[in-house]
C-alpha cells in the first residue's frame, strides 16, 4: 500500500537539476484569479483517469458578522469566503493592524492561534499572510488573509497579539516578508548570515546556500 503506483510520474521529481529559477514544474499553472487564494478551475493534467469535474468548495460567506465587518471596514474587506465550513476574510494588507485591534476587542477573537504565509509566485501580489484567530468566549475560529507583493512591508500585529513575535520572525526567515513595527525582526531558525528564503516556491529543494556552506563548513555544498 505504501508506495502508490506511480503511473502519473509526479512531475515534481526533477529529471535533471533544473536551475532554481523555474517554478516547480507543476504543469498546471494556477490560473490568475483575483479573489480566491486558490485558482478557480485549474485545468487537470493529462491524467489518464477521466478528468473529474473541478470541485469548487469556496462559497461566498454572508452572515451578520460579515455584514457588520463590511459596514465597519467596507473597502478593506476584499472578500469573504467559506471553505470547508471555515470562515476566511481576505483583507487589505495596509489596514491589518486596525482590523486586528477591532477583531480582538469588539469581536473577542482574543487568541492568535497561528500566523503563516503562502507563496503564489504566479500572482502579482505574491504572498498570502494568513492569520488564524480563535475566540474563547464564542469558541469560533476565523482566518484572516492579506495579500502582499514581494518587497511590500506588512504591518506587524505584535502590538495586538504578542504571540506573533516569533511567528512573524519565522515567516520573515522563510519567506523574506518584512513586518514593519516588529521589535527585533531577524532570522529565528536559520543561521543569521544565511542567504535566500527557503520556503519560497522558487527556492528549489536541493539548493543550499552554497556560499554559507563553503564559508562555514569549508566543504563544497552537496558533498
Amino acid at each position, binding site marked *: 500500500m505504501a508506495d*502508490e503506483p506511480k503511473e502519473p510520474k509526479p512531475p515534481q521529481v526533477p529529471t535533471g537539476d533544473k536551475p532554481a529559477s523555474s517554478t*516547480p514544474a507543476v504543469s498546471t499553472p494556477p490560473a490568475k484569479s483575483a479573489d480566491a487564494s486558490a485558482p478557480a478551475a485549474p485545468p487537470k493534467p493529462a491524467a489518464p483517469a477521466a478528468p473529474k469535474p473541478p470541485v469548487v468548495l469556496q462559497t461566498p460567506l454572508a452572515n451578520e458578522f460579515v455584514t457588520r465587518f463590511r459596514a465597519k471596514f467596507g473597502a478593506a474587506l476584499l472578500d469573504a469566503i467559506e*471553505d470547508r465550513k471555515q470562515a476566511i476574510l481576505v483583507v487589505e494588507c495596509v489596514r491589518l493592524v486596525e482590523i486586528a485591534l477591532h477583531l480582538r476587542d469588539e469581536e473577542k477573537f*482574543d487568541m492568535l492561534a497561528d500566523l503563516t504565509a503562502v507563496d503564489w509566485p504566479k500572482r502579482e501580489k505574491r504572498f498570502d499572510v494568513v492569520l488564524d484567530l480563535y475566540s*474563547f468566549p464564542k*469558541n469560533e475560529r476565523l482566518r484572516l488573509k492579506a495579500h502582499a507583493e514581494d518587497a511590500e512591508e506588512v504591518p506587524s500585529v505584535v502590538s495586538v497579539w504578542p*504571540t506573533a513575535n516569533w511567528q512573524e520572525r519565522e515567516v520573515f526567515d522563510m519567506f523574506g516578508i518584512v513586518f514593519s513595527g516588529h521589535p527585533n525582526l531577524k532570522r529565528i531558525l536559520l543561521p543569521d548570515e544565511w542567504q535566500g528564503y527557503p520556503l519560497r516556491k522558487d527556492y528549489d529543494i536541493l539548493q543550499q546556500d552554497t556560499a554559507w556552506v563553503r564559508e562555514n563548513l569549508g566543504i563544497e555544498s552537496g558533498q
Partner: protein
Amino acid sequence: MGPQHPSTHGVLRVKLKLDGERVIGSECIIGYLHRGVEKIAENRTYQQFAPYVDRMDYVAAVSSGLGYCEAVEKLLLVEAPPRARVIRTILTELQRIASHLLWLGTHALDIGALTPLFYCFREREEILKIFEKYCGARLTTHAFRIGGLQYEAYDTFERDVERFCKDFESRILEYETLLTQNRIWIGRTKGVGILTAADAIAFGVTGPVLRASGVKWDIRKAAPYAAYDQYKFEIPVGTIGDTYDRYLVRMEEMRQSRLICLQAVENIPAGPIMAKVGKVLKPPPGEVYHAIEAPKGEIGYYIVSDGTVMPYRVHIRPPSFINLQAFDRMVRGHLVADVVAIIGTIDIVLGEVDR
C-alpha cells in the same frame, strides 16, 4: 547555557542576562534541529509526508499523526469510520499519558528527585509495548493513515489497555506520595514561573500551561474530534499558573486520560477501519486549518491544496514553539536554579520547536 546543556531537553541555547544570581532577561536561540519539514512537505505526496509528522514531536508522535490525518480527511471531505475513530482516541490518550510521564520524570530529575524518573519510565514502557504490538514501532509510530487505520487492533488489545489502566491508578499514587506533599518539592515549584491568564492568552500559550493559569479550554471539549464527544471527562484547571499548578494539572490530565481509555475500551464498535479513499489522493483545491489537543498544547495543520497529488503548502502550528515564547516572561526575577525548573515545566520538545 549552551546547546548541549543537560537539562534543556534537546538543543536549546538560552542567553541569560544576570544580575548576580537573579535573571533579568533571557533570549532563546533555536534552530539547531531545523530540518525544513514544511519545505519537504511541498515535495511529497500526502501519504508520504505522514511519517515526517511523527519526527517533529517525537515524544507525542501518535497525536501529531492524528492531527495531520484528520486535517487531510477534512480536506478530502472524508470521515473516518467509527471503529477507526475510537481506536485512534485510545492510542492518542495513551500517547498523552506517555508524554506526560516523560515530562514528569525529566522535570523531577532537573529539580533533584532521582527516583520518579525510573517509576515513570517503567509505566511508559508498558505503553510503548502496546504501541509496538499494534503497529510495530514504539516512538515514531506512524500508526494512522489518511482515512482511517492501517492495522486492525491486535486480539489482546482491549485486555492490554485495560490491564494498564487498572494498575496505573496505583502508580500515580506512587508519584503523588513522592512529590506532591514533599516540602522541598513545593519549595522549589510553588510561586516559580508564574504566568497569569491574560499573559497566557496574549502569548498564545495552549495546553496544560494555559489551563494551569486558570483558563478552562481544551480542544477535546471545545471542538471534539475523533471520538471524544462520546466520553465523559473533566478538564483540570489551575489557579495561580505557577510550576506547582502545572504539575497538578498534568497529573490530573493523566488520570482523565486513563478514564477515557477505560470508557473507550469497553465498547469498540465493529465495522471497517478504513474509509473509501483511493490510492492516489487528489483533494479538491482549497485550504483547511485543523487543530487538535496534543499533550503539549494545540497542534494545528494549515494545508493548502492545489488539486495535485502533493500539498501546495503545509504549515504546522507547534505548541512547544509558541509556549517557549512565554519563557522570557516567566523567568524574569527568578534565580538561575529556577531557570531549569521553568524549562522543565513548559515541557518543550526541540524537534517540534525547530521543525
